[in-house]
């Protein structure tokens, strides 16, 4: 398996995605916005369609669209008078509708599009790898530097605001990080399933962790194991990688829930 370059590339990209997706998802889940990733995925779909229509690399247009979508959700939530789920619904449905219109205009309702929707390890290129590595490391560094502020903002947004913390800037940072994660993950996991990789490892980790830091570390560990195991299974079983990765993550949640319940069964 590892003698194949596309598999090595997929695994390398997968490890970065496996760490980054739960790390960003941690802050979304804690803010009860686990579905934001789903909404941004649909906006990224419109970005892919725009890339096809304009003849630009779809990954780049998807990244740009997702970032704008993330900022739009945050703006609607905080200043536009829309509750969190309303902001999400507005961006979610506008994104998918725009994607359908653009894809049909470009005449690209084909296999290539499905690769972005559901992920395909065959499509990862060296260019993708360097883009994922740069954006992934940059995003993780941002989380590391702003960790205390991000934690304060998600645990007690108003308390942090009163303390003089620029919560709006931190929330916008999370929205942009979520958008970047979706943009760089869609080759491996697929637009429609990346949100699951942001949420499921965190939900699993919450069941067995003993602190905030251990939740984050366990979630990233579960993310890596899910991606690597999912890619290997998809290679040998000729399965869709995105779906396989997410099913492994869902399995990790079931295991974590059983571990959590075990003492009570005694």
């Amino acid at each position, binding site marked *: 398996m590892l003698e194949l370059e596309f598999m090595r590339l997929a695994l390398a990209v997968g490890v970065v995605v496996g760490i980054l997706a739960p790390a960003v998802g941690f802050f979304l889940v804690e803010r009860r916005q686990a579905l934001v990733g789903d909404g941004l995925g649909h906006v990224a779909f419109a970005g892919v369609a725009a890339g096809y229509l304009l003849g630009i690399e779809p990954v780049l247009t998807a990244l740009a669209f997702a970032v704008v979508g993330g900022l739009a959700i945050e703006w609607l939530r905080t200043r536009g008078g829309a509750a969190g789920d309303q902001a999400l619904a507005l961006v979610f449905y506008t994104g998918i509708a725009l994607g359908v219109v653009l894809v049909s205009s470009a005449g690209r309702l084909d296999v290539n599009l499905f690769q972005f929707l559901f992920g395909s390890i065959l499509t990862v290129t060296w260019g993708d790898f360097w883009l994922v590595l740069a954006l992934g490391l940059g995003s993780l560094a941002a989380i590391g530097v702003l960790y205390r502020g991000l934690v304060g903002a998600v645990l007690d947004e*108003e308390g942090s*605001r009163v303390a003089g913390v620029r919560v709006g800037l931190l929330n916008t940072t999370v929205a942009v990080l979520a958008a970047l994660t979706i943009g760089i993950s869609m080759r491996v996991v697929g637009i429609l399933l990346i949100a699951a990789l942001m949420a499921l490892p965190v939900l699993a980790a919450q069941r067995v962790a003993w*602190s905030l830091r251990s939740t984050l570390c366990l979630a990233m560990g579960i993310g890596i194991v899910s991606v690597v195991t999912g890619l290997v299974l998809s290679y040998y079983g000729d399965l869709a990688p995105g779906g396989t990765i997410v099913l492994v993550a869902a399995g990790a949640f079931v295991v974590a829930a059983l571990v959590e319940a075990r003492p009570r069964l005694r």
Partner: protein
Amino acid sequence: MPLTPSVPALELDGVSFAYRGGPPALEDVTLTVEQGAFLGIAGPNGGGKTTLLRLALGLERPVSGTVRVFGLAPGARGAPRVAYVAQRAQLASGTPVTVRETVETGRLAVRGVVGPLRAADRRAVGQAIDRVGLQDRAGAPLRTLSGGMQQRAFIARALAAEPALLALDEPTTGVDATAQESLAELLAELREELGVTILYVSHEFGAVEHVVSRLVLVRGRIVFDGDPATLPAMWHDPSHAH
């Protein structure tokens, strides 16, 4: 920023407020709170006491009138630090966040959001935890503690910010009577030893009645303002305000 003793901790001048599309929640409220005061803000549910606190903290903006905290607009850069303990239900987390991790976030007000905590911050966090008597539970997840202990952890977080003004909204909701008494004593000690100004919102003020220096009853406007000992006996029943 050093405190100027002559400047009131809080001033509301002719403040009125209504939530969007709703009736007035507060009308023409004027209130001056001196530094070092322990102000109880009580009244019926929906009477506007939490709104009054949110206006003081800059979380809401008045429709008319002005709000000043230590002589400045709420949230102004360089203003003395303010700490806010929201209602406990709003602070619940699905993640097993520990007491120490909770208290560490209080240092955001002092250290800012960038980079790790320093040794001095860790000392301040430890002292805040000791102060509320949770030193033996510092590593325990909050969700494993009783309501009273959780409330102490949130107060420790506020103390870690080394605030000049501490605002608490319904801190005794869901807390048993013993923990309520204990909380009142802790707050009285903080005021006495640290000189911190305390704003304490509660729909029932029985537990803190004997430690507050001043009581304000709010029902859309201020209907009583003075020493709690002078409050007419029938008003000790908060339902009377309805």
